[in-house]
């Protein structure tokens, strides 16, 4: 980039309105050309004076009054705030996760019941390891 092309872009450069490629080209030229760098610094200094020269703040009472209005308008009642988490929308993936987590144990047992003893037949007693014909333990001859 030559000095003429750089000077044409200085205003846009100061205003941060150049695209990345042009910005890099101008910055590179400014790094190697003293005249353009000085012109850039003068321009930037002149424009930088505008904002502070017009900066002004309202009285503190204005802020207080405005804050009060904002509080009145946007602060929610305590009950609403307490129950706010319940009112939040549940994302779609949240529902999927809940279903997967809830159904996983059921699916696990349905597909693989594991070692729960011999399979029962209809004529066997319903309780595992219980033999109705066997003498109860209390009648075992211990002595």
């Amino acid at each position, binding site marked *: 980039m030559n000095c003429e092309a750089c000077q044409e872009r200085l*205003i846009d450069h100061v*205003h941060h309105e150049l695209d990345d490629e042009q910005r890099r080209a101008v910055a590179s030229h400014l790094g190697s050309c003293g005249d353009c760098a000085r012109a850039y610094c003068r321009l930037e200094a002149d*424009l930088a004076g505008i904002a502070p*020269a017009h*900066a002004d703040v309202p009285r503190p009472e*204005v802020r207080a009054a405005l804050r009060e209005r*904002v509080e009145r308008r*946007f602060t929610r009642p305590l009950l609403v705030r307490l129950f706010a988490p319940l009112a939040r929308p549940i994302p779609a993936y949240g529902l999927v996760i809940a279903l997967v987590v809830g159904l996983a144990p059921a699916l696990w047992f349905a597909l693989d019941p594991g070692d729960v003893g011999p399979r029962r037949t209809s004529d066997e007693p319903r309780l595992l390891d219980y033999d109705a014909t066997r003498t109860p333990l209390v009648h075992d001859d211990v002595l």
Partner: protein
Amino acid sequence: VDQRSDEALVRAVRAGEIAAFDVLYARYEQRLFGYMSRLVDDRALAEDLFQDVFFGVLQDRTFDPTRGRFSAWVFTVARNRCLEVRRRATARAAAAGPPVPEPERVDDVVDSHARVRAAMDRLPEGQRQLLMLKQVGELTYEEIAGLLGIAEGTVKSRVHAATKAFRRQLGDPT
């Protein structure tokens, strides 16, 4: 320091987080009030308008924080409001007769800020507005184009002309 964007802060205020208002206010207090104060040229009036505009943009749900920057929106609303008030004031002044000139402030002459303000005062209204929106409002060419309803290229060429004119007035021609 709260790192959230202006748009996120607007959403937070609307959701009832008043602390977000404090952050947003601190970001805009100087810029917006300075701009409005300059437009209406009346501090007390600017304070009233500032309150109304700031509260209005927070309340107004037509601003969608997911689309466009808050700064562009708030400066657009502020500008429209100030111009409307100024038009009314001009009409009233015209009906009341010629204005009484205010005495010049001698102490400001040596002030560098006063020098900048004087240079800005000597610019045509349109150029002054553009530089205020660019430097004080920190709006992009695109946002200014949207605000003024003109093409971005036009904004660019006008900002160039305004910048050069401002520097001439400042006594520092390119």
